[in-house]
């Protein structure tokens, strides 16, 4: 209880009741809960820390073990200053910046975030962030369907993240929109197959691809966007923003919307959340965007100011006719990503991409040279992730990597397709040192 006994008595007297029970009398007697809640007793701060530490200690993580897991969540270098600045309580204990005069700090960082992610993706407008990468794809598709009002179909490449496809399936069922998935050809999206799946011009509202795709393959984004435009659909590209350090900006390749997961920039994976979805688009479509957007203006004295703008799109004003039901962003994660991008800067971002590219290719070459191992798509380009065909089931390889070598292995493709149980998806990032890669190669060699 915050209150002293005296304060409490004085407050009750001011209100004119004898007890809090009297105030709670507005809850009808027959539905009051009278017993103690069925849960364990309270813990002191010290007990709580020990309890949580015990739980944390039962996990194996990249804090203590080399990890080559990616598949949509990536470990990257993060400067200490990102942690320090995010811990400013003025950032993490503030609410949504609905009062601009009391929130310029958050609002300016949102404007910076929008500017940086647009520069990375080559797009014109971004929102303040979305729940995560998978729902960002869904929001992009729903935005496309608001623009292409007569469309009844959405086409998605099977190279998209299985979670994104799963979310599309769930959401589009509610909206009675047909979802057509297009199989990959040799690990990559075939633009002609996208067009073929789209049907008559106007049927399809959105064509979705991901690059690098779930198997790590760098897609021909321009060919896919052209295919989308041929059938009158919006071209949506889901992209790992870190890969865009060295890969062409989708905005330069014809994308109408670029989206994905940005928590790989400056955030920890946190067992899948909270992350930060991002969604960028063209200015002409801004009124169909979901969620918050910050914009620069001036105050009445002419001073530069940042506000939330285009709010008439949003649920608190439009209610049932809003562009989305979303009323939050992942502000703290986006803030971390913003500071991360600023600290790496124009040159550091490219260099970091180069480190990923170099280490992943070093690893891929070494693994492909091992007896029994080969790259699944040796002709395809990749950034920091690639598929390896394994001599034993990937699940067994992963188990023995952790048990015998203390290495967290890759993603077992049997989890998305039981027939692909001899394929291992390995991510090699700037967090995997040459020594770690050499140890992985040695271990895999021993398991052939």
């Amino acid at each position, binding site marked *: *209880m915050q209150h002293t006994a005296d304060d409490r008595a004085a407050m*009750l007297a*001011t209100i*004119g009741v004898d007890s809090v029970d009297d105030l709670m*009398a*507005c*809850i009808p007697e027959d*539905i009051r*809960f009278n017993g103690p*809640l069925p849960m364990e007793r309270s*813990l002191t701060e010290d007990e*709580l820390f020990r309890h949580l530490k015990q739980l*944390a200690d039962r*996990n194996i993580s990249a804090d203590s073990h080399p990890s080559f*897991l990616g598949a*949509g969540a990536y*470990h990257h270098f993060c*400067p200490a200053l990102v942690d320090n600045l995010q811990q*400013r309580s003025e950032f993490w*204990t*503030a*609410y949504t*910046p609905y009062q601009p005069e*009391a929130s310029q700090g958050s609002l300016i960082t949102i*404007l*910076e975030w929008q500017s940086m992610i647009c*520069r990375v993706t080559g797009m014109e407008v*971004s929102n303040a962030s979305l*729940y995560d*990468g*998978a729902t960002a794809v869904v929001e992009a598709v729903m935005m496309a369907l608001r623009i292409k009002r007569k469309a009844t179909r959405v086409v998605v490449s099977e190279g998209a993240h299985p979670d994104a496809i*799963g*979310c599309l399936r*769930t959401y589009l*069922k509610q909206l009675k929109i047909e979802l057509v998935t297009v199989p990959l050809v040799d690990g990559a999206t075939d633009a002609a197959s996208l067009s073929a799946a789209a049907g008559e011009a106007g049927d399809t509202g959105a064509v979705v691809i991901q*690059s690098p795709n779930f198997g790590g393959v760098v897609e021909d984004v321009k060919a896919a966007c052209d295919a989308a435009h041929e059938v009158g659909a919006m071209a949506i590209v889901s992209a790992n923003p870190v890969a865009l350090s060295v*890969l062409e900006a989708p905005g330069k390749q014809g994308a109408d919307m670029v989206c994905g*997961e940005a928590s790989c920039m400056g955030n920890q994976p946190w*067992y899948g*959340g*909270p992350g930060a979805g991002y969604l960028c688009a063209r200015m002409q479509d801004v009124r169909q965007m979901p969620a918050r957007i910050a914009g*620069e203006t001036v105050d*009445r*004295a002419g*001073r*530069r100011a940042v506000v939330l703008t285009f709010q008439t799109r949003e649920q608190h004003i439009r*209610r049932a006719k809003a562009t989305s*039901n979303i*009323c*939050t962003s992942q502000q*703290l*994660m986006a803030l971390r990503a913003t500071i991360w991008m*600023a600290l*790496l*800067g124009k*040159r550091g971002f490219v260099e970091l991409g*180069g480190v990923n*590219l170099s280490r992943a*290719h070093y690893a891929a070459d070494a693994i492909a040279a091992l007896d029994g191992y080969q790259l699944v798509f040796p002709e395809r380009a990749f950034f920091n992730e690639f598929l390896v065909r394994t001599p034993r089931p990937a699940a067994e390889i992963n188990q023995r990597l952790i048990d015998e070598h203390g290495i967290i292995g890759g*993603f077992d493709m049997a989890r998305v397709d039981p027939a692909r149980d001899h394929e291992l998806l390995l991510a090699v990032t700037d967090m995997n040192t040459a020594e770690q890669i050499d140890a992985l190669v040695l271990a895999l060699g021993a398991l052939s």
Partner: protein
Amino acid sequence: MSTSTPPADERIAAGKPSALYASASDTQHGRLAMSQHDFTPSPAVGPSPESSGNTNPDVPELGEPPLTIFELTVPGRRGVLPPPAGVPAVDPASVLPDFARRSDPAELPEVGELDTQRHYTRLSTLNFSIANSFYPLGSCTMKYNPLINERVCALPGLGSLHPLQPDDQVQGMLELCWRTEELLKAVSGLDAVSLHPAAGAHGELTALMCMRAWLDDNDGAHKQVILVPDSAHGTNPASCTIAGFKSKELKSDARGRVDMGHLAQVIGDGKDIAGLMITNPSTLGLFEPNIAAICQAVHDAGGLVYMDGANMNAILGRTRPGDFGVDVMHFNLHKTFSQPHGGGGPGAGPIAVCDKLTPYLPVPKIAREDDGAGGHRFRVVESSEKSIGRTRGFMLHAGVMVRSYAYMRANGPEGLKDIADSAVLNGNYLRVRLREIFTCWIDEPCMHEFVATGRDLPNGVKTTDIAKRLIDYGVHPPTIYFPLIVPEALMIEPTETESKQTLDRFVEIMTTIREECDTRPETLKTAPHTRIIGRPDEVRAVKEPKVTV
């Protein structure tokens, strides 16, 4: 910076052009302001032209501070260097086809580490936050976020967990999440929990999808109408639309409760009624006295009852939604269970459901099994026959679960009930004290919050003017112009963690502002006067959009 600032006599402290990184504190308040010790991030160090105003002629005008970090860019300057490759460098041209290779680098800032630190430190001081201001933002539950939560979140083995690690590597995290589900079941009185939803509105949508699936399986495929009270959050009808339902407004009666006559009328023969979304306590801060009868009426029509749990802090341990007829609800872990709001996320909106909706919860789910050695092991179940499917990437906001789990365990059963008691005590204390100054819309005992109206203020002063003036006094404004059914609404939620002394000072400030409505209304209409900016031109932000720099 423009010099067309408001007249000096209208200002508590004038905003003067600031030097680069000049101020540790953007707020400086008059003698009635809530004390700097309590409400500002730290005392200003050195000259503070932003806040101390035109009082010191020795501080030269140095122009406007940079808006964004891009303005600090010096070509070639580096912040933090990434690690070296440590392996032979690969030329992108040798491994990436021409069409895929980046033609121009992303134009990110080129700034030093210290400049970056100062820039964001300064930006942080431009925010009101719980840590530096009283923040009575109705419906948002801006309460103290215990720091032990941040300490446990920093433990090795939590944040670095990868979502696709095999179950046997993440048993501690799975157990924590499973235990969080159990605690939410306990406080809701419902039968199963999904931790998937990333936010409250996402919980609404996920729940509506589960309701749709149950209806389809129970001869209700034709049912399209979800009743939503006119006092509801905007997310409720917006979520209905995305879930393929049609929302229909349910009128409140003169006392702000569901109009039972109108309820019977809109239900009619019930054949279209898919369900009801109700916030209880309502956004007016009132407990719905007929809640059991309302739930019964919806059930009789073959519909389901959804509860928006935004105001759960008012009823913890005092009543449970599952016990008064609710079939499904969402929690806002960022309101009730102390996940910090983060300046606008992350939050989390887990849902709790009754037995009949349990099979429809999204996948993956967490299952607890006997480990054969007298203990338990936890497993992630990827699919389930009747599940609505996947509604997000991976599984849950684990970082939010750690904080909310820690918060619930720290409080225990008595502590959670105390939260409700203190929230309701504070809400009523403030209501009774402010009732003398501002008109309360429904003048009767409330729960954790109440709604006042600025409708009858003199001299053309509006609610927004009161809100903006509060900023001058170092208080974050209440929620304004919501709920929509109250004209000129001021929705005030003190929360359970504020002391009587803080509430008393807030009353003192509100009293002063009310006097200012009579004595200097223009000061209010042009407030705030003490921040780095005054009222922004929001029309211009739409007409001449500048959404990137």
